[in-house]
């Protein structure tokens, strides 16, 4: 966990909300919810040490392992 990265991302999120606030206010509820959910996911992910965290890449590697072995045998 790196607090520096987390606070940087928090500042960026704050800037994005300030910058988009005027336009996002006029959009319907669904758009606003999507906007904030994406920001929350981004904020939550910045809490972790991402390069060494298992993620979608690890998932795909375990799904495609038989094909990966096939490629290595070529």
């Amino acid at each position, binding site marked *: 966990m790196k607090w520096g990265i987390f606070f940087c991302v928090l500042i*960026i*999120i704050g800037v994005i909300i300030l910058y988009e606030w005027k336009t996002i206010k006029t*959009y319907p509820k*669904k*758009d606003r919810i999507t906007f904030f959910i994406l920001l929350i996911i981004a904020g939550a*992910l910045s809490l972790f040490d991402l390069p*060494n965290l298992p993620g979608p890449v690890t998932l795909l590697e375990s799904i495609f392992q038989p*094909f990966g072995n096939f490629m*290595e045998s*070529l």
Partner: protein
Amino acid sequence: MEKGKISSLQMGMIMYLTIMSTAILTVPGITAKYAKQDLWLSPIWASLVGFMTLFIVMRLSKNYPQQSFFQICEHTAGLYIGKLVGFIYVCFLAYVTGQIIRSYADFILTVYLPQTPISVIVISMTVLAAFTVIGGLEVIGRVSQIFFPIFFFSIFIIIILLIPKLNLSYLLPIMEDGILPSLKGAIIPQIWFGEFFLIIFLFPFLSDQSKGRKWGMITIFMVLFTFVTANLIVLFILGQNIAGTLYPFLKATLFVNIGDFIENMDPLIIALWILGSFVKITVFYYVTALGIGQWLNLTDYKPIVWPLGILIVQLSFWSLPNLMVINHHDETVNPFLGLLMQTLIPLLLLGISSIKKKVKPVKI
């Protein structure tokens, strides 16, 4: 959602830059690992995937005119499964965008700016791409209209300058171990030909849809031609040493030397890489943002562009600590993931839609 219109010619230019920009540098090295001196044959086999993808995309958009890919999913597979497939596609597109930004940053880092932190390179490119994405499809179309001639002619100028250095004997023996090595080498380039799948997102915004098929075909032939030429040039310059190099075309460019005066052409390659990668990243970023908008039926995709930017930067680092891991991942996962998402699932959707058309519900 998207009010802009582009012409089919612009679509062709967008697709050419999207595919060729990263392919010309990285693909020959990986192809040569499997195909040895037959690497120039591999793109020809791989282009079959491109033609198939284009055919599927054209048939789908003919069956469901003016509908987004996500609507097509819902029409063919039902509402819930369609939404699920849409979610998988949104995740796939965001993931691919992250990977492309990472490979762009790795090249700049290894070749040009070794002291710069990678996050600076990634974030600066993402911010630039985000501004273009907010500009909309017309802006992307015009950007690629400006960049296409620069990209295309620079590559051919480099190739012409390399002609005195060519050693044609590296080509022999053709098909030493039969056709199989060149087919194995085609497994990697087919990812790039499969990216013609993106046409399905651009097709509803074409002003002259009747010409879409023609320009799609021409783009595939152009990509194929550039691919084969680049592979041949790299082979004629480097011979059997290609397999060990990460960026063979850059290495071949270092051989340009005419009368000790015209030399050191590698900055041109770096400029081309930045220019082409910019278009590629922008197109994938745009398609991801538009895809999320269409998948959730939002009124506009523009507000989610900046939040998505943070996510894409994070995806470009997630589980990818160094270049070794990335290269291993590129060779073992992406060929099958690309084939599955870009060609096989659309083929399945086309199959379901044509069956649905034939079997009409019986009225009681």
